[in-house]
């Protein structure tokens, strides 16, 4: 008997559940370390060296270096933790959100001004 996880059917969405939290523990704690200025400086000086201090998977480390936020989410990252990375890069939530959608930031910003992404066609409509 396994737990029901109907939210896995929601299109274009990763729900950060207890299982993802387990997979992403070190990735997210690495992100938290960037709250300290000295750690940000060390990370920026040599990202690979800094990441190697954390028991993260190779896939997680490569995703961080590539700033591939969808890959980071897929391997257990949570957006509020990942925000420490793009904040360290001097980038906004809207920038990071845009990169995850494959849109340019101006196109994404325009979509938001026009009322955001429509729920029509973007929700799971089947049985749960």
């Amino acid at each position, binding site marked *: 008997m396994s737990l029901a996880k*109907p*939210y896995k059917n*929601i*299109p*274009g*969405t*990763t*729900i*950060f*559940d*207890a299982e993802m*939290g387990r997979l*992403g*523990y070190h990735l*997210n*704690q690495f*992100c*938290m370390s*960037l*709250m300290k200025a000295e750690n940000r400086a060390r990370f920026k000086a040599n990202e690979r060296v800094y990441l190697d201090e954390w028991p993260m998977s190779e896939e997680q480390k490569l995703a961080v270096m590539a700033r591939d*936020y*969808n890959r980071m*989410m897929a391997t257990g990252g*949570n*957006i*509020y*933790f990942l*925000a*420490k990375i793009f*904040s*360290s890069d001097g980038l*906004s*939530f*809207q920038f*990071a*959100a*845009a990169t*995850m*959608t*494959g849109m340019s930031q101006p196109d*994404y910003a325009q*979509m*938001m*001004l026009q*009322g*955001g*992404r*429509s*729920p029509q066609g*973007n*929700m*799971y409509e089947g049985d*749960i």
Partner: protein
Amino acid sequence: MAKITAGVATSHVPAIGAAIDNGKTQDAYWQPLFAGYDFGKEWIKQQKPDVVILVYNDHASAFDMNIIPTFALGCAPTFAPADEGWGPRPVPSVMGYPELASHIAQSVIQQDFDLTIINQMDVDHGLTVPMSLMFGQPEAWPCRVIPLAVNVVLYPAPSGKRCYNLGKAIRKAVDSFDEDLNVQIWGTGGMSHQLQGPRAGLINKEFDNAFLDRIVDDAESLADMPHFDYLNQAGSEGVELVMWLIMRGALNDKVKLKKRFYHVPASNTAVGHLILEND
């Protein structure tokens, strides 16, 4: 006796705080949003609450992945604004109310809500943005605040029903506190938004407006909405709306709607705001 007189609901988007802190509230982008809070700023000057129980969520500021309390009640005398990576917001520290907070903790734990008691905590935009929206930019906040941090970051958040019933337990706790106090309860976060993945930017005006309708006079059945509906229809971060149900549960079954406001967008998010008074 202490008495809960009113509830406030509002989104707590960090970009709103940045707009206030950087003097951008009259920019064309932001002006319509801040206009929606003019009524509330005047209203709260008349109401003069002694204490606000402020329901919000931490965003990887005070809590990391080491400890994740579902309901954490702030019992400290003061709470400093958190450094969220670009320095703390230039807002006053929040003054707590340890006597009432510890009374609430004892009462609601005895009503079967196993709160975590927090005696040291910084508070992030989830708490300070609602304060700025309602009180503007004073030298010191005009009332005391009891923070109630709810986990909505690591799924599963508490259910809507659990939140609604916690509100009722808080109401009982406040009612049994001997000091004469005018207490408000605020529920924050939401409305529809998704900050991650290919579906980022989702906004659901129909969902949000139905939620704004139902939380006023159909809250009991609204509290039965499953998590899946929030996630699917209001976006992965839209599940924050369960926190509004704690506020609503602490009010009378019948309330007076004093203000309703809805605006899209603030950055990635739909903004909702309600003021409800106990009859």
